[in-house]
């Protein structure tokens, strides 16, 4: 039987009927909290779950104390630079396509053939304008997932700072471009003559935000479901594809 009768009538009890005893029990709870929180100093660890100590105060005094967001937290966008300082973005518009809030506006441009830097840069397309209206953004993270170039990420661990005007929330390339440069071995500009050819295109590692390394994907048999024989709880480990 999967259902059970859970209703009850506390007023059948004399303690309940006479109001006071159960009220005193309630008071005991609050007074206990009061005394603990009054007399014992607060643990200022911003990770509330890991606080120790007798005080039970869970407030985090922002802005003096700031919670650090877990890895994979969807924060403010950033454009990932490559080694020459330009954004990795190639203006493919996938982020603008998948954005449910339609907050991304891109305009594409082409490097001139006469541009000296164009010789080694096979990606002749680049964003002349890449604008995110952070007021429209709903922080769903779909753009990060949709990017085929690892060019946009939301791993800044920050929120959009406040502004006085609406147009201040419109982030363009100079504001968005931050963080260390990132290169993947398969990047086209690394594959041209004059640059080293990757020994094995599959060996590159890329961490999806919050996920860790995604291992090499090769034709493989169906995954056998491993069963752990243990009495204790099986730790939730990362996704392992054998």
């Amino acid at each position, binding site marked *: 039987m999967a259902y059970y009768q859970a209703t009850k009538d506390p007023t059948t009890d004399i303690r309940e009927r006479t109001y006071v005893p159960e009220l*005193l029990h*309630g008071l005991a709870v609050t007074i206990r909290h009061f005394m603990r929180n009054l007399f014992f100093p607060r643990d200022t660890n911003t990770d509330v779950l890991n606080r120790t100590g007798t005080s039970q*105060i869970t407030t985090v005094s922002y802005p003096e104390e700031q919670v650090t967001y877990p890895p994979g937290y969807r924060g403010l966008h950033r454009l990932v630079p490559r080694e020459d300082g330009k954004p990795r973005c190639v203006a493919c518009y996938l982020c603008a396509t998948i954005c449910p809030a339609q907050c991304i506006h891109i305009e594409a441009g082409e490097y001139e053939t006469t541009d000296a830097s164009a010789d080694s840069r096979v990606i002749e397309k680049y964003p002349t304008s890449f604008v995110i209206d952070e007021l429209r953004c709903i922080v769903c993270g779909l753009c990060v997932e949709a990017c085929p170039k690892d060019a946009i990420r939301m791993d800044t661990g920050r929120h959009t700072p406040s502004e006085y005007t609406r147009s201040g929330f419109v982030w363009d390339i100079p504001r968005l471009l931050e963080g260390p440069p990132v290169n993947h071995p398969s990047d086209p500009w690394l594959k041209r003559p004059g640059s080293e050819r990757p020994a094995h295109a599959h060996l590159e590692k890329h961490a999806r935000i919050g996920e860790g390394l995604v291992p090499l994907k090769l034709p493989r048999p169906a995954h056998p479901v491993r069963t752990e024989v243990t009495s204790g709880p099986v730790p939730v480990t990362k996704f392992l594809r054998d």
Partner: protein
Amino acid sequence: MNRTLKILSVAILLVPGVLFGISWAQYRVGGWLAESCPVFHTQLQLCDTGGTSLAWVSALLFHMLLFVMVLATLLTVAERKWSAFTQDRIGPERARIGPAWMRKHSFGGLPHVAADALKMIFKENTRPKAADRDRILFWLGPVLAFAPVFALAAVIPFGPTVPVNGYAISAQVANPNFGLLYVLAIASLAVYGTSLAGWASNSKFALLGGVRAASQMISYEVALGLSLVGMMVAFSTVQLPVLIGSAAAGTGQAQYLWQGSVLGLDFGVPAWGIFLQPLGFLLFFTAAFAETKRAPFDVPEGESEIIGYFLEYSGMKFGTFMISEFIEVVVLSALITAIFLGGWHLGFAGDVALAQGLGKSHPVLYGAFCGAVFAMKVVFLCWFQLIVRWTFPRFRYDQIMTLGWKVLLPLGLFNLFASAALVLLDPSLHWLAVAGLLEIAVLAGLTLTRKAPKSGSGHEAAGHGTPDVHALPAAAASAHH
């Protein structure tokens, strides 16, 4: 630990010290006033009206304006801070004052008092257009809510009457011989403020609040009065100083019902109201809560239902409502202290000896000590009221009426008759005390024996495969195969 020590030292040294100081200053100033204006003075007579000399001005200054007002003001912050502690929060701590080194400390949120006051005063004082017709009544609302409550404090003795410079100086603004009747009479005036506010705002929500307030306060007047009659009967007086009595003389609540002595200090069961009239105490406490319109009796406000009778008020007008609520808390705490908790008496540990020794040799010090004891009891009761307010949900309007008329009133009558009978039977109050202690014991017994939690704890109790099908309604049980 640092924090614990700090708080304990504040609680043990600073607060009693300040209270002691206020009391001491009141006696001294009262003595000085009586001395400098002897015209008003008739004769030295203990336990008589204190108003015959100018010393009442001193009581007004120190007890009403300084103690009651300041305590009420502090309670506005204390309410937030203390509720924060019961709810695992920090509470107000952002208002900072003074030089850089002081700004590091929040001082327990105390600067918020100033910040709030400033805010209230300088906030825009709006009046809804609909309230234009009754602008005088609209203005009168907060005044009438504030004044009677504040005036209640006039008859409360904040300490014993002691001889200073040869004049009997009491810690009471006035000691009319109708004593408690004054309290009941004036307290019932406060209802005008709230109902006027509700009506003059010309707002439906405010009107509902005003009407609720009026009926609630009027209903609980009865229980409030009735619950005190037992004490009046027991001590045959309506005057508060008499009710409190004198330790030296062994009168009033200062007397011991059963006396004992340990290490030269006398211990025993004092004739405090709470021992004689626990039921009366509960009734009075409940009714007093209803009078203050605070949770669980905050139906006139009911901020999640109708927001309250002061819905349309802003600025200091709203502030007046707020402060009058806290004054009510203080005054009612003081009344309970005086009537049920033995007033300024410690009730044990050499109370009598102290009165006979120190009271004779340094009457002002003794008076100040008693004043501090009284004030500490008041502060404790204020704290208790605040905790109660933040623990309980509120009643419904009709439940309040039911409670008032169908529970408190019969209980009050029963208490009165029973007490009167016991007093008649034994004027030494022992039987009354026995009955009272029995009541307390029953209550404690009920509280300490907890019912084992019924099946509730889900899975284990529900049990795999031990279905309680029969408990399900027939339709439901048949619906499920």
